[in-house]
């Protein structure tokens, strides 16, 4: 007897990750910590940007920590640790993105007191595709676009730029040398995500870092209300 029929299901394929991310976000909210997920193509300057940021938020009397994902090495974690804040590495072993489960597992093993933190940064794996689909429980997803990689990147990776909350043009000290077309890059960002906040920085010269830190602090404070 062969009896075909339709079984209705309606389940999100990423439901496990989404549910865990919601739980993480609830934990972060309860602890009063603002969580930032940094994404970009490989080498756009996440670690350099974060190193600068960590040093400066400490000077402002804010407590922070960072979790950094890397395919194979702990180089980035060693660089970030120089800032003096707690840093932990997630070696993804070839996995091209971080998932909420990895964040939960590492927080567990780390034993970090979230309540003592103001800001918690996650450096995602350098990849503009896969990390877009995975909510990590962050409050802010920040996509970095270096001036050397082409103004049309947002049009090539619209899903990531659409999913992010803020775009940061990095390596601005090189803008003139590579004839970075700010207007074209801005138009590309606005085309795939109308109204997105755009900031410009250089981790080398410190250009724009003050504005970024002010923006972040203001977000953190309004988020605490």
């Amino acid at each position, binding site marked *: 007897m062969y009896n*075909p029929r339709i*079984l*209705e*299901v309606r389940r999100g*394929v990423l439901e496990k990750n989404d549910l865990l991310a919601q739980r993480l976000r609830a934990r972060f909210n309860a602890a009063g910590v603002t969580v930032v997920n940094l994404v970009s193509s490989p080498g756009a300057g996440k670690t350099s940007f974060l190193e600068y940021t960590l040093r400066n938020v400490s000077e402002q009397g804010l407590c922070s920590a960072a979790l950094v994902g890397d395919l194979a090495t702990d180089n980035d974690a060693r660089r970030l640790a120089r800032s003096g804040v707690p840093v932990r590495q997630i070696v993804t072993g070839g996995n091209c993105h971080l998932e909420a489960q990895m964040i939960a597992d590492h927080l567990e093993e780390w034993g970090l007191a979230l309540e003592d933190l103001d800001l918690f940064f996650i450096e995602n794996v350098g990849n503009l595709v896969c990390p877009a689909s995975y909510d990590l429980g962050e409050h802010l997803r920040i996509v970095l676009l270096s001036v050397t990689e082409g103004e049309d990147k947002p049009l090539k990776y619209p*899903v990531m730029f659409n999913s992010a909350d803020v775009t940061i043009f990095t390596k601005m000290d090189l803008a003139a040398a590579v004839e970075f077309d700010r207007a074209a890059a801005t138009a590309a960002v606005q085309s*795939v995500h109308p109204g997105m906040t755009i900031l410009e920085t250089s981790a080398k010269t410190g250009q724009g870092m003050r504005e970024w830190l002010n923006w972040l602090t203001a977000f953190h404070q309004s988020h605490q209300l």
Partner: protein
Amino acid sequence: MHELSIACNLVEIASQSASDAGVEQVQVVRLRLGALAGVVKESLLFSYDIAVAGTLLAGSRLEIEDVPVAIFCSSCQTITTLEGIQSFCCPLCGQPSADIRQGRELELIALEVADVQPPHT
């Protein structure tokens, strides 16, 4: 390339839904895939055949329904679908809109199944 990992998640929840319903054989798995889900259809179809091997879903076919992005335009007070995902402007009046109402779906919607015995006998 995260489509293989997505395919494994899909196979896991589809198998679970099937066995919860006491289903013995699945012919078709139906998925809704939004243009903003960040998943490449061809890669997912390819990965699916790898992911089903040795599971309850072995031999089944994945059917993907493409879901375009739909945005709400506050000027027109209308929801319209977009052709692509590179320009989030209202097709009627050209006003940009970040108010997305559809297009992030990555959802298992149904299974076409066969029971060896009709469930009611």
